């Protein structure tokens, strides 16, 4: 009896020890993560009120640098969020959509289609940093586990353990701790005050290229398979999808690939929109509206958002939430947003005057 009692006590001790270990492990995992735009965008998404977003923009920097959710809210009452990370990989999309649908029931999901074009580029395809951009922000879940197990061994040929447990990757980040923000992220209360938009004080004149062509060049079989899988998956979801290519210095070779991607998307019954066809309508100025060949600056982003919110208004039936009391918190964010935008615009204007161009 005495021995039985001792065993019960020992088992209890082991269980408590393991629970404490798991808590410490999770705590360390969160405080060691590098707090960057990827983490802020993903972590901030989970603190949005449940089913409060009518639109989610999924993609890479071609999403979060371009689409300004707070402007769209102010202009048209569209409640949206950029669930986007740097150099997003096309194979991320299914898992990102699954993640979005865990807490939101959007009427429209916009997918940044540039990921299908650049994935075959040797320098922009899958690599560990790009995978960590997503896994670092995602909380532990079955979806996260499947993303890692289905992709890391296939496309990176790496061991998955460091992807499952971020601490293995990030435990060396000892000098850049921001414990307060990390704790908020751990508790799921971190708010992204720009709803996933990034505002950079950058500008550079870039060359506008003649990209017009009707030719089609196929993407790699691997990327095409990823696209087809995504299209098959989104057919099963009760939500509208729009595939978008945001403006950049597009060369003809890229357009040939986009023509091929467009055909695949449209053949499956989805809408494809290449906004590069609308430079004039957007009034994009290549000398002042970009900061590098792949990204608009804040001026370009504003023009892009104006164009896309108009397109959404005409083509999709999204409610205007501006007079909805449930969205008061959105109104409160606007003043801070304006302050930031005005400050950035002033800075960029000075940089243009001084020809202080951004170098990537």
């Amino acid at each position, binding site marked *: 009896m005495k021995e039985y009692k*001792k*065993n019960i006590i*020992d088992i209890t*001790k*082991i269980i408590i*020890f393991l629970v*404490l*270990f798991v808590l*410490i*492990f999770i705590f*360390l995992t969160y405080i*060691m993560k590098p707090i960057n735009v990827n983490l802020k965008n993903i972590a901030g998404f989970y603190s949005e009120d449940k089913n409060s977003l009518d639109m989610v923009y999924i993609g890479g920097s071609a999403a979060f640098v371009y689409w300004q959710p707070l402007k769209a809210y102010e202009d048209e009452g569209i409640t949206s969020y950029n669930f986007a990370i740097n150099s997003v990989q096309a194979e991320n999309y299914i898992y990102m959509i699954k993640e979005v649908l865990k807490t939101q029931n959007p009427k429209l999901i916009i997918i940044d289609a540039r990921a299908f074009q650049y994935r075959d580029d040797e320098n922009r395809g899958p690599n*560990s940093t790009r995978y960590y951009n997503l896994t670092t922000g995602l909380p532990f879940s079955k979806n996260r586990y499947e993303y890692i197990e289905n992709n890391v061994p296939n496309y990176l040929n790496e061991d998955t*353990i*460091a992807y499952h*447990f971020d*601490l*293995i*990757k990030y*435990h*060396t980040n*000892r000098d850049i701790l921001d414990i307060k923000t990390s704790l908020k992220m751990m508790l799921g209360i971190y708010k992204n005050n720009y709803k996933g938009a990034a505002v950079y004080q950058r500008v550079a004149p870039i060359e506008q290229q003649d990209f017009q062509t009707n030719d089609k060049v196929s993407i790699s079989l691997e990327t095409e398979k990823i696209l087809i899988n995504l299209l098959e998956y989104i057919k099963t979801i009760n939500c509208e999808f729009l595939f978008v290519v945001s403006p950049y210095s597009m060369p003809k070779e890229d357009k040939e690939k986009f023509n091929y991607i467009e055909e695949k998307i449209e053949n499956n019954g989805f809408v494809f929109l290449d906004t590069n066809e609308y430079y004039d309508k957007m009034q994009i100025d290549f000398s002042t509206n970009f900061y590098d060949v792949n990204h608009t600056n804040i001026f370009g982003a504003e023009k892009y958002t104006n164009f896309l919110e108009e397109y959404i208004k005409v083509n999709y039936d999204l409610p205007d939430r501006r007079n909805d009391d449930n969205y008061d918190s959105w109104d409160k964010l606007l003043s801070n947003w304006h302050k930031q935008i005005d400050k950035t615009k002033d800075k960029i204007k000075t940089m243009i005057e001084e020809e202080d161009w951004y170098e990537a």
Partner: protein
Amino acid sequence: MQIVNFSFLIFLFISVIVYYAFSKKNRWFVLLVSSILFFLFASSWKLLLYLIFGIITTFLGTNLMEKYSKKRKLILFLTLFSILGPLFLLKYFNIFPLTINAFSKLFSLDFKVGTLSLLAPLGISYYTLSLTGYVIDIYRKAYKPQTNILKHSLFACYYPILISGPFVRYNYMEKELFEEKKFNFDNIFLGFYRIIYGLMKKLVIADQLALVVNTIFDNYTTYTGFYIIFAVILYAIQIYTDFSGCMDIIYGASKMYDIKLIENFDSPFFSKNLTEFWRRWHISLGTWAKDYIMYPLLKSEIFQKLGKSCKNKFGKKYGKLIPTVLAILILWLLIGLWHGASFRYIFAAGVLPWIYLTLGQIFDDDIKKLNKKLHINTDCFSFRLFQSLRTFGFMCIIWLVACSPSLLGTIDVIKEMFVFFDSTLIKNLPEIPVLIIFICSILVIIVDYLNYNNINVFEKFKEQNLLFRWFILFSIIIIILIFGAYGPGYSASEFIYGDF
């Protein structure tokens, strides 16, 4: 799968649960299955064939020796040949082409012999030497051979000791592996403490220091003078915490199965002289080599004759000393070769220790007399400290050779030691958590000091209050998780002695 690996800890955890879920009588079988699975995870089924071959030949050899006692010697040689042959071929054959190539280079000849590039199975030198000892013991009729091939297999491939030893003797392991044991949580806790301590030594001290040591030795023409001396001292700490840390993990894992292994380290840095150091460093290799190489040599007909002849020519003292010194030379050359098929290892881990020990034997009496004449108090702390530092210094010379790119390269490294050093280069060295490494090293010194004074630290630790124990344990775990050298970007996670 490596021992310092999350997968290993999960594997161990599952294996321990299954082990105790089986009846006491059949628990050894779980260990056998675990060992085979571990080998397959860590290596490949093709390389498992070497191990199976070694197991079958030694099993047949030892049982045939028992049955056909008149042909014991022939069977012994055949068995030893069959298990040492693959070891020699896979690990040491290249010493011949390397020798030829070294001489060819020395005499500027345009002649090069190709080397063999064969993959050696996991732990080949460890299981081969343990099996060799077993075969010799059976030949000597020290005990009866194992007649159950599965039990024999477990002795050969018990997985915690497969990577870095220690070398084990069958008559000791038989009791530990096959005796029916009662489950006791204390074994799990003690094993766990030891594993955590080993992980701290390996990941926080050894692998972090390796970053600095490797940088300096890979660029010894840049990091000259003091940097080289500094790197050798760090290497001494690195190799000790690496190897003994590995042993701590192995002992901890075994303790969880209630298997007690013979210790491989016994606070070596507190040794007063080199003889004592070698008694406390890699103990199982030392005892194995003495039992199966040195004593048989000294008892052999040739050495007996040599002893008599020297006694007649040089007197009683040298009649005893010369054969002993010669046997020690052969012993150390083989130990040097075991460390690696290169002249660097043969010299560093073979010739140098032999020179030290021989000189020690020759001048021991004279040094004692000198101390007495100079009225040096040899029974005080300061003298003991001096002795320990002197021993450490001698060992650093060995490690300097071991760290050099080659035996001839050692001369270049020594030359660079006397070149002026640029103190600003220190900022180019890899950044390591110096304070944490220092605190952990102090902890290791305290544990070793207590051990030196015959205090079992882990048993004492278990007797402390729960809150204290958990505070210490979680502190070490957090230090390992944050400051350990593991994950992407670190590659120094293999054990130094795992390569031998």
